[in-house]
């Protein structure tokens, strides 16, 4: 019995893209190619280089039994492709993978759900698709229905369900798979906060039961909560394997601007942000200079420069602050102050700077990530970039810095301590 669950060696996957796919191949194309091939001397028609991309390249790693491994990477880095190969949905172009045990894959919830069938019928159908035997589904049926909370509607066609009910039912079935290896792809990205919390809860149960889990997500706090080690994929290659906090830090900050300023070029701004257009995000030190390392004992200024090509009412522009290892610290908007919000109900077209000051003696040493959000509450989000800029905090002079021990936590406030001698013990 080997002690690893998954072993992957030099795995690679190539896809064809571009003009080739603009029109599906017709039988005529296929036949004419087949007929012409003898004239080309039986060599396999070489795939033109510029028509293919390598979604995965030279990926090698091992997952021990019972390990929960996170997989992070930007969109297009190859995470879903890796999971598809390990789930046997698609074949590798090169390389080798060995899987010890049964794999259950959650690449999407509700696979195979049919809107005309009732909840009950879909539970059986979906369960069978996920690889559960009928007896198993029968045995767990009540648990599944309980978990989903749609008992009252279990015999109505699923097309009548709200999207929330649909998701809960779909996840309930998937949550009751019991494979030795579970492969999960960002299932938690959909649904409301309640649903996400439930999913996370179930995932951590699964992780604790000693199953091997491969977990792909964009949700850094989920990665941190559930996984001990994480691999970072970048453009199809495995860039790093490290304990999760380190890996997340690397992932978040590797592509980010570090010079204290992040500018957006016109082509980087999505068309649907208009009339809002972000121009720059800056971190300034106490002297007003952009800096990438700041003293925690000084106030820190964050400013967002943007332009509006038309007036917007109810606009709020704000920032997210996150610790580089993924922990959210706060979200703050320029019109959080009710007074300010009322006075600035409508912003006219023009060029603006929204600036805020983080008080001195608040943040702990470490690396931080700032993001930007421009939106109107519950109406529309104009622009968002969660990981726009990173900066470092140097805590020299902060309270307690005379002892060189790392203090966990994102804040390190200077508190007003007083020490009173209540009574003296004299010998």
């Amino acid at each position: 019995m080997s002690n690893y669950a998954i072993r992957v060696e030099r795995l690679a996957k190539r896809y064809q893209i571009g003009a080739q796919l603009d029109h599906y191949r017709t039988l005529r194309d296929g036949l004419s190619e087949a007929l012409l091939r003898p004239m080309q001397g039986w060599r396999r028609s070489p795939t033109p280089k510029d028509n293919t991309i390598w979604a995965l390249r030279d990926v090698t790693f091992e997952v021990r039994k019972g390990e929960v491994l996170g997989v992070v990477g930007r969109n297009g880095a190859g995470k879903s492709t890796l999971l598809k190969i390990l789930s046997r949905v698609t074949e590798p172009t090169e390389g080798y993978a060995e899987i010890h045990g049964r794999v259950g894959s959650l690449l999407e919830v509700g696979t195979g759900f049919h809107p005309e069938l009732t909840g009950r019928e879909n539970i059986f159908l979906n369960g069978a698709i996920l690889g559960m035997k009928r007896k198993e589904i029968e045995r767990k049926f009540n648990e599944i229905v309980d978990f989903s909370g749609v008992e009252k509607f279990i015999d109505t066609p699923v097309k009548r369900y709200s999207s929330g009910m649909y998701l809960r039912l779909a996840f309930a079935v998937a949550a009751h798979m019991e494979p030795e290896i579970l492969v999960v792809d960002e299932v938690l990205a959909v649904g409301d906060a309640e649903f996400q919390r439930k999913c996370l809860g179930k995932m951590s149960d699964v992780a604790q039961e000693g199953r091997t889990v491969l977990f792909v997500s964009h949700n850094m706090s989920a990665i941190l909560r559930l996984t001990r080690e994480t691999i970072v994929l970048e453009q199809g290659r495995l860039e790093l394997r490290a304990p999760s906090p380190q890996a997340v830090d690397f992932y978040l900050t590797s592509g980010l601007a570090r010079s204290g300023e992040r500018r957006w070029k016109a082509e980087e701004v999505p068309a649907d942000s208009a009339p809002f257009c972000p121009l720059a995000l800056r971190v300034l030190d106490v002297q007003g200079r952009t800096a990438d390392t700041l003293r925690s004992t000084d106030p820190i200024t964050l400013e967002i420069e943007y332009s509006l090509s038309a007036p917007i009412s109810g606009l709020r522009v704000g920032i997210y602050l996150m610790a580089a290892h993924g922990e959210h610290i706060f979200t703050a908007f320029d019109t959080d102050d009710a007074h300010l919000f009322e006075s600035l109900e409508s912003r006219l077209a023009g060029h603006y700077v929204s600036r805020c000051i983080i008080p001195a003696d608040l943040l702990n040493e470490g690396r931080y990530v700032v993001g930007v959000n421009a939106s109107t509450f519950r109406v529309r989000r104009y622009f968002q970039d969660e990981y726009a800029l990173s900066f470092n905090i140097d805590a020299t002079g902060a309270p307690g810095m005379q002892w060189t021990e790392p203090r966990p936590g994102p804040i390190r406030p200077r508190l007003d301590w007083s020490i009173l001698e209540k009574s003296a013990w004299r010998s």
Partner: protein
Amino acid sequence: MAQSITTASQEEVTILQPSRGWTSLNLRDLWLYRELVYFLTWRDIKVRYKQTVLGAGWAIIQPLINMVVLSVIFGNLAELSTEGIPRPIFTFAALLPWGLFSKALSDAGRSMLANRSMITKVYFPRLIIPLSSVLGGVVDFLIQFLILIAMMAYYGYAPTVEILTLPLFLLLAVVTALGFGLWLSALNVLYRDVGYILPFLTQIWLLITPVAYSISEVPARWQLIYALNPMVGVVEGFRWALLGASTAPGLRLLVSTGISLLLLVSGVYYFRRMERTFADMV
């Protein structure tokens, strides 16, 4: 290609590697996933009838209408022979296996594309998709069979001992339908125009199969070539087993069966070979 091995310590090990050329049929996986065949067939049937007002009635109405139309065209208008057997049951008996076949051409042919979302998200032997599509037709067949029995009773046709061979002919019909279904469903993923020629193909096929007419209308020297159409053997067999038509099993049946088996086996191998690209191309 994925290979599953069970090691000495009862652990299932799956090896994933790029496959080249012809791959094994992997019947083991098909057996492991047999329950899914049932579920997908059940789903197709349930869904087909849930939304329609007439529900299972469609399974009956369609061949009945076909029978009437064909009887009028080939009988009253063209006056082709039915060897003395009353035209309605002569035609209807052939429409039963024909229904299976034409469903395979259309539904099975499109089944892979229709189930695209499952194919790109979950693993299961893809053969199950066209297979369950064809098996769904068997259920329709059984309903229509009851109607046929009723019609035979009406015309005073009692079943003879030959009817015991009917299950074999049903099997042959399924084999034929499956062979075509596999080829078409695989081809349709790779070449989308295949889906568009299916209705056309079905129409033509109906004319070259002796559904509405007897094979005696075909000149004797062409009859063996004609039997290259595997449905010829099936339809003749059905008529002989049910109605005692003159088409007893003979050389033509042998030719038709041979073609059916050839299509099935080649269909399975072709499908398996193309399976590795389905998730990427569907």
